[in-house]
């Protein structure tokens, strides 16, 4: 429960950072990899939130 919460926080910052970095990076390949990371981070955020909400409901 608590560790999922910490992962959620970590992933939240990862998402924010990936978004901010997108405006700084000009290398095309690096940009693509970072955009993939952003998508994965957003997906991970959603999954963690779902798990947390379910854990709270019980």
């Amino acid at each position, binding site marked *: 429960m608590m560790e999922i919460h*910490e992962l959620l926080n970590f992933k939240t910052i*990862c998402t924010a950072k990936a978004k901010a970095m997108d405006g700084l990076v000009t290398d095309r390949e*690096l940009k693509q990899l970072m955009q993939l*990371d952003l998508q994965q981070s957003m997906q991970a955020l959603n*999954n963690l939130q779902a798990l947390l909400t379910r854990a709270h409901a019980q």
Partner: protein
Amino acid sequence: MTDVNRAPNPNMGPPLDIEDFTDMIGFANASAALEFLLTVKSGIRNTAMSLTECATPEVRTEVRNQLRQALDMHEKLSQLMINKGWLHPYNPGEQFQLDLKSAQMTARLAQMPLFKDRIKVLETFDTPQKPN
């Protein structure tokens, strides 16, 4: 010049000298890649640690998937950095020189008066004080 007891103001450095910063864009990309790499590695550690604390199989599966994803991302990113010449895992000497150069370059950048024009604007967005 600088008082040893007081931290130097990072916005009061020498004036901008573009001559010395010809490959600024490349340097910014390399720095961003390194930051990304450190974040991915940190994510791998965090996820692996969480995996040892998971309470339900459902949570464990999700965290394990995220760990695999992070390991995969690390693979892709380190390969990209090796290809670009930003990372030399099999040549510590080369890596060390590059790191030293980055550190010096960054230290000089940190001395530059980069955001002088924004100080006034940013001050208006200071966190309001709570009344006691």
